[in-house]
Every structure is written in structure tokens, then in C-alpha cells.
């Protein structure tokens, strides 16, 4: 048997783990954290201003036009939804596969999922011409007859998929946190702190009977989340695949989108972890270089999948013999937006190939840069799909161009502010590593392991 390297460094005991992780919520973080938070909130204010202006004056402030009816909002929506996939994947799929290394990154990855989905969820609402009536997409009983929704529309599927996903992943995240919240509650010195965390922990007592049900539910949620996470990005891909538009109307989209989502999600986890390891040094013991390397391997593998999908699209376009398809793919690579295509290919296919080398897989600055490139590439993948397909479709007379405005940039970059604000607040107030899940794997791979049967 291959000897494993330890999952957790620093010769921890159960008590020091509790102190490390619960302690994060108990003392003020250092200046670096607040600097990061201030930056994130600055961006968030930009987001609010940009979106506020758009809601007040109209969608026309953005670059969207006719024929390019979807722009930054939808691209960024798909981007964030994609980001949101890694969390559930790590917590659910790796859980089902009994991957012990998932334990220390699962919580943050799930949090990332929840916040990414929250960020993403704003965009479909805000991209509508009349966001104040966006609730009409929900099939709620009403006095109009009643008038329901069009269940044939991928956007309604989206509403169901994204809201189900948001609900289930939030519940999954929260249920996972309940024992840890109880731990924090029990450590609390302050009355109000005890009450608040007591409330959040639902009064969890940690008896064997409860743990029995708890583990079962956790596994069930993991089992339910796995098809769910696959379905969500498949359904998001249906937004495009169900349309008649050349470049959208393709059957490869669901797996292609899911692979892309995992790809970008893991890249975002690497980005976040690289940052958090710096901002909160204690993470270095829990999120080790081995964790990072594992994720980098997944990034490389999914990068290859994505690259395969890019090639396959071209082949099928040629093989189909449909003139519109052939044109749209040539136009993607060599048309006026060809630069975006090559950014996408470079960032998503070529750059991750560096992870074939152990050096890059285990070097934090390098992987940070590469993961950023992957994120950029994946944003551009959605850009390529959305813009290049729309800007030149069937009738050449209606061809046009899409040019972003300052509001597009505000919405895009501002959304990072929203996301990072939420994430940094989460790091501060909630147990950022799953205490109750890390403890059982404490001795995995330890040389001096007396508890060898673990």
C-alpha cells in the first residue's frame, strides 16, 4: 500500500483543531483581512450603482442590442453558476467516492457555491427589462385566471434548477455546519454569542442517535446533490442548446457545460484557497499542498475535457453540413470576435497543460496565476458562446456587433465584489473548515499514527 502523506499538518490534536477553526470566529482578523474586505465592498458598491442605474434607466445602458440580446449579464450568470459547481462537487461527489482529502476544503467550497449561486441568481433577474416583475417566472397562484408559466421555456427550467440548487446546496452547507456551530456555541464566553450560535446550531447535542441520522441525511443529500449539480449546468446549457441559433443548437452542450463548470469551479477554489491561505495562515495546515495539487489535477483533466468539446463542436459543425453552423464556427475563430475565441482556447486548453508538471501543481504563485487564467478563459467561453452566436445568425441583414459599456464592466467586476464580500464575511463568522469532518481524518497519513485503523 502506498503510504499517504498526512492530510493535516502541524501535529494537531482534536482540541487544537477546535481552537484553530472555531478560534477564527472568536478573534478579530488582521489588517490584511480588512483591506481585502474593504476592496471587495468597494467593488460591491460599484455593482450596486451599475445595476441600480440599469434598473432605473433601462437595459439600454448596457451593450446589449439587437441582435445581441444577451450580454454581460447572462455571460456572468453562467460564469458564476459554473463557479458554483465545484463546491457541491467536492462536498457531494467526493464524499460519495469517500475521498478523505475533501474534508478540509468542502466547507469553503460549499460556501463558495452558495455565494456564487447567490451572485449568479441576481443576473437573470437584473438582465430582464422589468426586474420588478421577474417574479412572474414563478408559477404562483394568481388572480389572472390563473395564468401559469411556460414550462417549455428553458428559462423556467432555469428558475427551477437554480432555485432548487440554491436551496439544496444552502441546506447541505448549513446542515454540515450545525455540529460545528454547536462547537462554537459551547466555547462561547459571551451570552449573546452563545445565544446566536445556539440558535444557528439548532441546539445540536451530538448524541450517537443524532449522529446516526445526521450521517444518513448527509449521505442522502450528497446523493441527491450529485445528479442535481449535473442537472443544473445541463439545464443552464439548455438555455442555449434548446434555441435554434447556430452555435447554440447543439447536443454536446450539457456535458460540455458541466465539464466547464467543474473546471472553472475548481479553478475558483484554487484561487480562493491561495488567497485564504495567505489571509488566514492557519488554513495552511488544513488546506495543504496535497489538496492544492489534487485540485490542480482535476483542473487539468477537466481542461482536457473542455478542449475536447471545443474540437468536437468544430467537427460536428463541419460534419453536419449545415451552412449556418459551419459559418458560425468559422466566424467564432476567425470573425470579428476571434480574439475572444483564442483567449478562451489559450486560457482553458493550453495554459492548464502546465499542470502536467509537478512543479506547477505544487507552486502556489503559479497555480494562482493559472487558476486566474482559467477563470478568465471560462468567462470568455460563455462570452464566445453568447456573443459570437448571436451577432451573426441566419440572416446577414440582421448581423451586428456588441460593444460593452461602462455598465457592463461595472456589472461584471462588481459581481466579484459581492461574491468576495460574502465570502470574507463567511470566513469571519462561520466555521470555515468542517471541524467535525476534519477530526475523523486527523491521523490519516501520519507517520507516528497510533490510531492506524483509521
Amino acid at each position, binding site marked *: 500500500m502506498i503510504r499517504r502523506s498526512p492530510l493535516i499538518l502541524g501535529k494537531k490534536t482534536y482540541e487544537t483543531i477546535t481552537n484553530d477553526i472555531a478560534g477564527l470566529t472568536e478573534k478579530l482578523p488582521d489588517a490584511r483581512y480588512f483591506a481585502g474586505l474593504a476592496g471587495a465592498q468597494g467593488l460591491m458598491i460599484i455593482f450596486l450603482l451599475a445595476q441600480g442605474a440599469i434598473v432605473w434607466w433601462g437595459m439600454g445602458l448596457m451593450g446589449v442590442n439587437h441582435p445581441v440580446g444577451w450580454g454581460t449579464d447572462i455571460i456572468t450568470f453562467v460564469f458564476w453558476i459554473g463557479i458554483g459547481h465545484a463546491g457541491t462537487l467536492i462536498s457531494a461527489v467526493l464524499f460519495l467516492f469517500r475521498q478523505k482529502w475533501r474534508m478540509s476544503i468542502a466547507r469553503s467550497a460549499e460556501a463558495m457555491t452558495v455565494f456564487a449561486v447567490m451572485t449568479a441568481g441576481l443576473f437573470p433577474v437584473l438582465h430582464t427589462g422589468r426586474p420588478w416583475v421577474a417574479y412572474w417566472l414563478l408559477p404562483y397562484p394568481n388572480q389572472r385566471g390563473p395564468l401559469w408559466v411556460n414550462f417549455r421555456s428553458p428559462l423556467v427550467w432555469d428558475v427551477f434548477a437554480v432555485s432548487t440548487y440554491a436551496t439544496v446546496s444552502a441546506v447541505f452547507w448549513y446542515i454540515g455546519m450545525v455540529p460545528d456551530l454547536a462547537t462554537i456555541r459551547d466555547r462561547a464566553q459571551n451570552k449573546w454569542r452563545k445565544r446566536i450560535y445556539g440558535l444557528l446550531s439548532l441546539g445540536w447535542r451530538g448524541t450517537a442517535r443524532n449522529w446516526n441520522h445526521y450521517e444518513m441525511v448527509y449521505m442522502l443529500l450528497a446523493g441527491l446533490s450529485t445528479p442535481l449539480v449535473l442537472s443544473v449546468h445541463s439545464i443552464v446549457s439548455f438555455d442555449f442548446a434548446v434555441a435554434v441559433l447556430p452555435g447554440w443548437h447543439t447536443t454536446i452542450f450539457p456535458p460540455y457545460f458541466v465539464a466547464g463548470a467543474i473546471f472553472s469551479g475548481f479553478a475558483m477554489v484554487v484561487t480562493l484557497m491561495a488567497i485564504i491561505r495567505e489571509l488566514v495562515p492557519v488554513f495552511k495546515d488544513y488546506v495543504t499542498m496535497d489538496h492544492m495539487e489534487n485540485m490542480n489535477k482535476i483542473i487539468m483533466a477537466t481542461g482536457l475535457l473542455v478542449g475536447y468539446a471545443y474540437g468536437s463542436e468544430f467537427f460536428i459543425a463541419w460534419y453536419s453540413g449545415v451552412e449556418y453552423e459551419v459559418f458560425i464556427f468559422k466566424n467564432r475563430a476567425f470573425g470579428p470576435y476571434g480574439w475572444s475565441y483564442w483567449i478562451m482556447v489559450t486560457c482553458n486548453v493550453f495554459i492548464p497543460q502546465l499542470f502536467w508538471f509537478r512543479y506547477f501543481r505544487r507552486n502556489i504563485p503559479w497555480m494562482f496565476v493559472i487558476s486566474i487564467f482559467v477563470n478568465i478563459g471560462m468567462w470568455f467561453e460563455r462570452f464566445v458562446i453568447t456573443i459570437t452566436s448571436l451577432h451573426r445568425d441566419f440572416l*446577414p441583414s440582421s448581423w451586428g456587433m456588441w460593444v460593452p459599456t461602462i455598465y457592463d464592466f461595472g456589472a461584471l467586476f462588481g459581481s466579484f465584489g459581492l461574491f468576495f464580500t460574502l465570502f470574507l464575511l463567511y470566513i469571519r463568522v462561520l466555521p470555515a473548515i468542517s471541524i467535525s469532518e476534519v477530526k475523523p481524518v486527523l491521523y490519516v497519513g501520519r507517520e507516528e499514527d497510533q490510531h492506524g485503523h483509521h
Partner: protein
Amino acid sequence: MDQTSSNKPSGKPWLSLEQWRQDPEFLTFAEKEFRTSPLQSGDGVGGTARRDFLKLMGASLALTSFGCVRRPAQKIIPYAKKPQDIVHGLPNYYASSFVDGMEAIGILVTTRDGRPIKIEGNPDHPANMGSMSSRAHADILRLYDPDRYTAPKRNLQNKNRTNREIINARWEDLDKAVTEQLGKGKVALLTHNHSSPTTQALMEEFAGAFGGKIYQYDDVSYASLVEAQKASYGSATIPNYNIDRAKIVVAINNDFLGTWVAPVTFQRQFAMGRKKSTEGMSKLVVFESLMSLTGSNADKRYRIRPSQSLDVVMALLHELVVVRKSSRYASDDGVVRVLSGFSKSREDLGINVGEVAEELWKNKGQSLVLAGGMSADGDFGVALQVAANFLNAVLENDGKTIETGRSVTRGAPIGDLLNALNKKEITTLIVHGSNPVYSLPENSKFREALSNVEMIITTGDRNDETARLADYVATDHHALENWGDMQSLGGALSIQQPTIQPLHNTRAFQDSMLAWLKGAGKGSAKAKASETWYDYLNASWKTLSAGKTGKLNFEDYWNDVLQTGVMQGSNGAAGSRSLASGTLANVKPTAKRAGFELAIYQKVGIGDGRLANVPWLQELPDPVTKVCWDNYACISPKDSVQLKIKEGQYVQLTVGDKKIELPAHIQPGQADGVVGVAFGYGRNGGGSVVDGIGANAMTLAQWVDGRAVTAGLETTIKPLTKKTELAVTQGHHVMEGRQIVVEETLADHMKDPGGQVHRHNLTTMWSEHKYNGNKWGMVVDLNTCTGCGSCVIACQSENNIPSVGRKNVIDGREMQWMRIDRYYVGTPEDPDVVHQPLLCMHCDNAPCETVCPVIATVHSDEGTNDMIYNRCVGTRYCSNNCPYKVRRFNWFSYTDVKAPRQMALNPEVTVRNRGVMEKCTFCIHRIRGVKAQHKVHDTKLRDGDVKTACQQSCPSNAITFGDLNDTKSMVRGEFDSPKAYALLDELNVKPSVRYQVKVRNTDKLKWAPAHEPVPGAPHGQGHKPPAHGRAGEPLPHGGPPPPDAGPGHPPMPPHDPPPPPVPAEGGH
């Protein structure tokens, strides 16, 4: 005593004794005077705004008094005394007349609750038979133009007429001043072609009474045409053309389908010759410099420079008379001698005119040669017309395709007026209906000459270039507020009747004339007996209609005429005429031009610029360039390469010492060495919409021999570094080998109509829905559609479609529900052009419906694709998924139109909010309205009961609409005809709109049938797009090379005239 007590001064501060005494006259005067303060300069606007404010106040008061009510409380204000024929909620239609330049057509004005909301064609009027031009539709917004004068004005001029102080005048004061002035004699009345016999009579009476003279000036002049008619036939008329009888029409720099003389009538006639699309379908051969609407519809098109226009006619004559000796003139030595002087024209042109001559001769008596127009009105303008007259005579067309017409001469030419002005022979000048200060070439020195006049009175409706120099503006009614009559070129007499109470304190010019006559105690008995212009008109018609009333007495007859709008039996040729001999003797060869030649032209939407302040027309894409909101210099692709000029780059055009700067537009198909500039821009006083757009092309025009020369002027082009982006609605101009517009040659078409259409075998996994009641459908005949854009404006007017402005068009946000796609086929240098109107296809398997999350777009059980604005959330997914891209999104709130434009809104159509999608509805409100009326009256719907706005307006009858479930309906037949095909058929969306193939009366198309993929045809990728929007891609990229001349073709000389000399380096 009472007096004093009632005039007790109030405690308020006072300015003068009059005010202190509250002298009523002073009060009204003060009130009006202060309305000229800058705060209320647009007094009508201010007034309306004030009323709006009061309304708002009322609403908010009402809101507060019903605090528990959660909606804005609304008021119902019924009529105090309701007119009998108005039923609230039902439209009333009034027959009236519309004059636009030389064209006079009959209109029906739709009014709702006493306000006109739309102008439609009068089907009973022989000139247009219900069809309309885009400009005629737009006249409604001229009525509601916020920039209109709302009262008569007085300009306080200094000696040089540069003072711009404008104060409100009162009619009484104005009348007094004018009558006094008129008493001095030396009156000149400058009028446009108003087309009204009775107005003309009144004018003559008026001029006679004051010892004055009538002069005529039209902003777009047909002086050379009329002059040549006089020279050739002895009568100064515009002839009556019967284009429908011609098997071949040759147009030489003549845009008869777009702007020349009477395009609505001509389009209708032309379409009659095209509709057959079998043996005997007419052929259109065009020789032209710019790419006009007519040229874009040509079967065969040759590119010439403006100065070569005469050469074309003479070369044809030379070929027919001298070479072939076909005509009886072959024995006329004088003629032969003149023609021999043009024996080299053919070589100079580099065009095989023999082919055209042969076809013309083959169809003699059934052919028609139309020459000239603004873009060929050079110093050779009259000669060109004379030669064309002679060619028509050689072809024996007189009395057949071309008949004696009616005089449009309303007075002496403006040249005479200029002379008289310069000689200070005129003390009072009255200008009616034209804007000579704007539209006369600068070197005519008209503006300067005006300082020789004591008093100028204009009748314009705004502070335009001419009105600014006037002393008084006796603001005329809009035609929809006024009585009148009209005679079309064909002779039909029609009536013009008011459809609304005058909106402002304006007065009909005719009433002004009557008032001034009476003021001076002059005028005929009729004038004296007429209390108003209406009485005068009525009395005149008593005379005019003598013998035509049939069994009716005059009062009944008059009511009858008011209902139909037209005097029956007044239409028809005005008699016969014969060609004067020796006219050709004066035709001298045109002098050769060095460098670029200027060609000023009219745009189909803007025309003579009278309606240029209507945003609809500014936003109507030019049928050929697809540019709107802009004036630009058109240059040919080859010249653009040579001069290194990019689309949108500014160029400086210089003629003599006159310069203008305009952005360049590279126009495929334009002759090399020619620069085209549209007329009607560069306004200063046209109104808030038009002012500041482009430059005035007439700056470059020259005043030669009492005529404006607008073409063939030597011009230098200097590229500037400044750039702009033209507002284009279509950025890509080739079909990329896709089956979009299917063209067939006439021969192919007769063998197998629709044979070139690639049809698909389509299957579906679903069974189709059954439509049991009506199933609405439409067929658009691409063969008769000329692309004029009348339907676009008709739709805009009918459906409350906003204009969004230049910036939004550049951003790709125009709102027109109907657009006309224009594609170039062939090389950029010499392409064929096809037009394709595109509207919502109302697909049975509509992709837009599937993707709408909230059921805001859905099919009705009558086969229409409905758009429910109030349900729309605005995801724009439907637009993305529409293969035809016919959906329009309200990117901003476009509902706040400047008052009183909102009065033109159609109450039957919801005004759309910001953030909702909209699109063509198949005029569902008309379907609903007609069906409701049938239901109420227990009658059955018949074919043709429902007409869409576009169909109704189309001058060439290209659109058929109706019930596809009615097997006998016209649309069913057209829909199923082999000529018809569904656009993007292979998507199986099953559109309810089908197209019929375009037939070109030629031997070989510029391109192979659309669907056969051309091996190796590049797909237009790779070229660098512009930074923004769709303004780029000016050239048809990647079209296959033009076909080699087939074996059957006679060897042809190269098409291209030698490239023009590039201006010397120093010019750069």
C-alpha cells in the same frame, strides 16, 4: 363711475398706466408679448406643458382625496354637445388630398374623437388607388410637430434682415400692416406647386388686385423638364406617363420609383408591369451615376457619370436613327447631322448601347425613356430632356406610354423674380410653400436680393431659413386643418378637407389672401361674397363641377365629393400633342469634366425636406444605403480605395469656392468619379429634429441661367481625419450563399416558376395544431416590391412605434417592426440589388414562443403570434431565438414624446413600456376590430376585409394578406403558388409569411441561384469590423466573382468608365 370702481387698481406692482388701469387690450398684448420670453419661446409647447401640469395636479389632488384607492384616479370628461357622427371608440375617416412636390394623391385621414391619427391612401383616387408614400404617412407628424409656430409672428428686422427678434403678432395688426403695404403695389407672390386649381385662381385674383405677379419656386425644381416639354411640344407641362403600358423602361439618371415627379403613381404603374412575371413582364434598364431606388430595381443597370447622361440618350438615338436607320427620322438630315456629332458617345461611354437600342426598337410604342432628375440636372439638363423627348418620339411612344400632361406652372420662374428683386422692382414679397433661402444655390444671391424688398411675408409654419428673413409670418394651417382642392398630374380633381380644428392660432393662406383683399376693398364678387376660404372653394367647385353632377343638385354632389374625395371623371389625358421639329438642333455635346462630378440627389424618405422634421422619416433607413439620421457623401468603392477613404470618414467637398464637410459612405454600384450628396439636410430652422444634421448640398449647387444646377459639377474631394459612425440599420450586405432572396431569370421563371428555390423535406415529431377558424397569412411578392419603405412608415404610424434617434440606431436599437433588407449580389463595383421586407413571420412553430418563460408570446387560435406586452418581463430570449430577428426591445422608455406628438398615437394599439419586447402583430387590432364589427352587425368576414397597414400602403401591391383557411382567398392562392417560398424553410418553423421569387428580366443573373453553395466562396469573415455597431462592412464582401459573359453574349466592352483622375496631392 362703475367703470372706475371696477378698474380699481390692485395692490400688485404695476409697470404702466395701462396695466394699472387693467386695460383689457393691454392685458392680452402683455400676455402675448411675454410669451416671447425665452422661458416660453415654444409657446405651444409651454401651453401644453402647462395643461399637462394642471392635469397632473388634478390627478394628484384626486389621489389625495381618495387616499384608500391604490390606483391613479382617472376622470371621464364626456362631450358637452357630442357631434352626431362621432362614436367614442370608433374611427371616422375623411377623404382629403396630399401634395408633395409635383405629386398629388388622395388620402383618407383616420380620426379618433376628433383628432387625426393616421393618413392612409384613398382607394378611390386614380393617382394612388389607396397606396401611399412614406412621406405622405409622415405628414401627420408635421401636423403635430412641436416646432410649429402656434401664432402669427412678426420679425423685427434691421436693414440687412439679420435681426432675429421675433414677437407674436395679432392677426388684426398683421392684416393692417400687410394691407397697407400691399397698397403700395409691386407685389410678388412666390408660391410652390400647390396643385390646387382654386388656390391658383385666388392667387391670380389676389395678384391681379394688387398689381402683383406670381412667381413659382419649388424646393426641388422640375424646371428643365418643363422647359424641355415646352421646347419639344410647345406646352409647359409635366407629361402623363403610363409606365404600366411600357414593356421596357429606360431610366437615365432618373429615380422615378423613388423621388422623381410622382413616385407613388409610378411605382403603382411599374408594379402592374412586373406583377405578371410571365411573357410580357416589363424590363427596366437604368443608366445612372448613383445607386438610386430605381437603379436598385433595374434588370440591367449601367453606370455613367452625370455628364454622360446626354451621351446615353444621344448614343441610343444615334444607334437607332443613324446606325440602324430604324426610324422615319433617319431621312431627316437635320437630325442625322446633329446625331452624327455624337457618333463617338458610344465609345466614350464604353457601353454597348446597341443591345438596349435593339430592345427599345423591338418594343416601340411600348417603351418609355425617362431621363433626368436632380442628379442629372446639370448645365445639360434641358438638352437631356429634349433629347429624351426626341428618343420617345423616335420610339413612337407619344400618346401611348407618354401623354400630354397638365401644367404645373403656377407662375413665372424664380429667375425672373431674382431679376426683379435685383432691379428693386418689388416692394412686397409673399412667400408661400417653399423655402428658397435654404434651397437656392448660394451664388444665386437670393438672400442678398431680399434686402431690396420693403416687406416680406411668409406663410411657413416654423422659423425656417426663409421665415427668418421675413417681416411677418402669416402662419398657414397644416393641410389637415384646412380646406382646399387639388388636381393630380393625371387630372383627377380631389378635395382637401379639415380633419381637426386648427391646433394653433394659425390661418389658411387663402383666408389671409381673402382678408387682405377685403382689407384693401378689392377682389372679385366671389371673393367679396366669401366670408371664408371655404365659401370661395365651394363657389369655385360649383363652377368646376358644372355638368358633372349628374342627377344630383350641387349640395348633394358636394357632400358626395366630400365622401369620396374625388371628382368622378376628372382623370385622364389632357389631349394630344406633337413633337416640334428641329428641337434637337440645340442639343450640344456636354463638356468633359475633370475630376469628380457632383450629383445632388433626393432621399426617398426626406424628399424635398419639407417633412424632414418628422423623426419617422429621419429614422427611415434609406432604401439603398440603409443609413438613417445622416447626410453623407456617397463615393464608389474603387474611388474609396484610391482616395483611401473609409466609411464614416469625413471628406471635404469643394465646388469652386464653396465647401462642405460630410462623412463618406462607400456605395456599391455607384459610378466611379461621382460623389453623391443628398438634399434636404444642413438645416437651420427646420425644427429640433432635423437641425444640425449633415450639410446643405445646395451650398455646392450653382445658379446658372436662372436654373439651379445640381449635377455634373466638378468637385474635389479631400479626405479629412475626422471620423464618425453612420447610423446604419443593416451592416452586412451579402447573402453569404444562403437562400434568402431567390432570384430567377424571366426565362427560367416562365419554364418553372420557383424552380430555383431549394425546398426541403421536413418532418416533425409532433402532430400539427389544427386551426379551425381563421388562419392569417401573408405573401410578399419580391418581384413587385421596390423597397421604397412606405410600409415601414405605415407600420410605424399605425402601431405607435417610437423613433429612437441616431445614437440608438448606431447601437442597434431601432424599433421599426418592419424592415426592408437590402442585399447586393455580385461585385461591389457593379452589383444587383434585392429588397426584402421582413416582418414577424408568425411561425406556426414559433421558436420565440417556446422560450418565453412567462407566456408573453403565444399563438392564438387564428395562427397569429401574439405579443402580450403587459406580461413581458423582458428576458429578450425570444429575440435571440428568432431566426429572422424581427423582434424589437424597448431598451429605454420611449413613451415620452414631445407634445403634441402624442396626439398621433393610435388608441387601438398599446403604447409599450420600457423593458418589454414588441414586434409586428399582423395588425391584430384591425383583425379584432373588423371581426367585432362583423359580429355586431351579424355579417360574415370576407376576403380583403382585413388589411394590414403595410399592405394598404404598398404602392406596388406587393403584400397580400388574408385568411389561409379560406380556400378562395387571394392569399391562399399566392401562398400555395409555386413561386412562393418560406424564408429559412429548413428550420421548419412554418412561417405564415411567404415570399414570391424575384424575377429579373435578364438572361443571366449576377450570381448563381442562391442555394447552390459556391465552392470556395469565402464567407465574409476575416475582415476587420468597425469599432462599434453595424456601421461597417460597407462593401459586399466575398461575393463570388461576376459570371463571365456567357457564350451567348456579344462581346462587351468593359463596363467601367476610365477611373477619374485623383485630385492632385496638393488637394490633400
